């Protein structure tokens, strides 16, 4: 049931890949704007590159997450899906995983932009991908839940970030720190603490949101 839900989500996302391009351009534009805000001082930009990457990713994620329930809302398909003997939990995890994969791709796509704009390259690509995966997982779990809620109300564009941003502060802090250590160097090996925090955050919210999702979509 989960596989079916996931396959459906991935198919939907593949069909709307133009939308992914648009979100990527939005993210890249955000990274550009950050450099204008700070000024063309190469060393400073490099110091803050991890922060800019994750802020850009966070802002873009609100677009991705909001879009993920768009299809359901268009045809009131959300109610239709729930009338099938399908588990709301399968629906949730299918969407959350699909969103997660899309955000990982987005993160990886934004890395070259970061490298060029901020001179923030690194050879530790594997570690970077792991941090991106863990950080975006932290965004996707509560983000998918809140997207389900806010898709059904007015003023959805404001409510989703308003609810999500305070919540994911630990994931943001940890992701930025871990990424920063990868780019700028980690002499005292601090990144393991941040990775553990990310893993804990993801574990807690992937289970909690899955448990509570049924209540969000029940009638």
């Amino acid at each position, binding site marked *: 049931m989960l596989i079916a839900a996931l396959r459906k989500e991935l198919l939907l996302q593949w069909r709307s890949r133009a939308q992914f391009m648009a979100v990527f351009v939005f993210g890249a534009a955000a990274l550009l704007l950050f450099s204008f805000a700070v000024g063309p001082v190469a060393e400073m930009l490099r110091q803050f590159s991890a922060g800019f990457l994750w802020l850009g990713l966070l802002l873009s994620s609100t677009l991705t997450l909001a879009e993920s329930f768009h299809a359901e809302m268009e045809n009131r398909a959300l109610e239709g899906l729930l009338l099938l003997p399908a588990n709301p939990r399968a629906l949730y995890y299918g969407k959350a995983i699909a969103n997660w994969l899309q955000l990982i791709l987005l993160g990886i796509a934004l890395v070259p932009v970061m490298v060029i704009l901020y001179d923030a390259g690194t050879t530790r690509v594997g570690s970077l991908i792991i941090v991106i995966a863990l950080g975006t997982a932290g965004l996707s779990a509560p983000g998918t*839940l809140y997207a389900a*809620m806010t898709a059904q109300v*007015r003023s959805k564009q404001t*409510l989703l970030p308003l*609810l999500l941003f*305070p*919540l994911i*502060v630990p994931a943001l*802090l940890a992701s930025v720190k871990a990424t920063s250590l990868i780019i700028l160097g980690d002499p005292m090996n601090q990144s393991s603490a941040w990775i553990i925090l990310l893993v*804990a955050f993801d574990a807690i919210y992937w289970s909690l949101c899955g448990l509570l999702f049924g209540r969000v979509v029940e009638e």
Partner: protein
Amino acid sequence: MKRNLFWLAIALLAAAVYFGLLVTIGDQYLHADLSLGLPVVARTLVAFLGGLAAVVILLIADDFSNLSRPKALGIAGVVFLLIGSYFGLFVAPPEQFMGETQRIMYVHVPTAWFALVAMTLAFAAAVVFLFGGNHEWDARLEASIEVGVVLAFLLCCQGAIWAKPTWGVWWDWDPRLTTTAVLLFAFLGILALRKFVDDPHRRAMWSAVATIIAYVDVPIVYFSVKWWNSLHQQQSSPNTVSKPFWIPLRANAFGILLLMMAFIMLRSRITALRLKHELAPPPALDEAELGEAV
């Protein structure tokens, strides 16, 4: 049943005030031993647990029918705050390093305690609602969140006013205060969510879910900010209060406890009245609703 519970809560509060505050006043100013043989640790425990138990019982026992009880609690709260502030401003001596700014602690620390208590009451109300579906608990949820938001906002203001003379900056990224700021935004978001959802069942369900998610985050935010900050600053916490300073602290604590409960009880009545109106459909609408569902 409810009436007896209310007086039980009052009795617990009286015991808390006696062992937590009056004994210390007797000790310091009347040179009389009022402790009834109870050692310091036990007295503090009684005061602490008695106060918390009273808060919980008052919340559960409140059936939204009576206005004079919360008002009485509120007035009692104001009295305690006036007594505590008088002691804090004019009687307690200035501290060794913090000077006069120590006096800010006598309002700051109690506000911190009860901002957290209010959020915890909100969490409890959310859980109770999810299990029982009783909209009374949705009313209590909205009230606790709003009161918690006000206390958290107040906490941030007090924190900034304390930080400026002490550290020279308005905000010093202290983990507790930063967590409070994040909490403030999280719960403001939940209040905003409530404004935009018209269906009362959904509104209650969603706020309960959002409250649980936000509250679970509190310790995580605290630890992450603490680690994030620890690499840069090693400061003493604005908190340690030693014995001669107990009286204003505890008097203000009881004051804020009573005022918080008064606010929560009165605020729940507002939501309860609104819910009564929303949950009882006027006869003329029934046909239109049926048409909608088909």
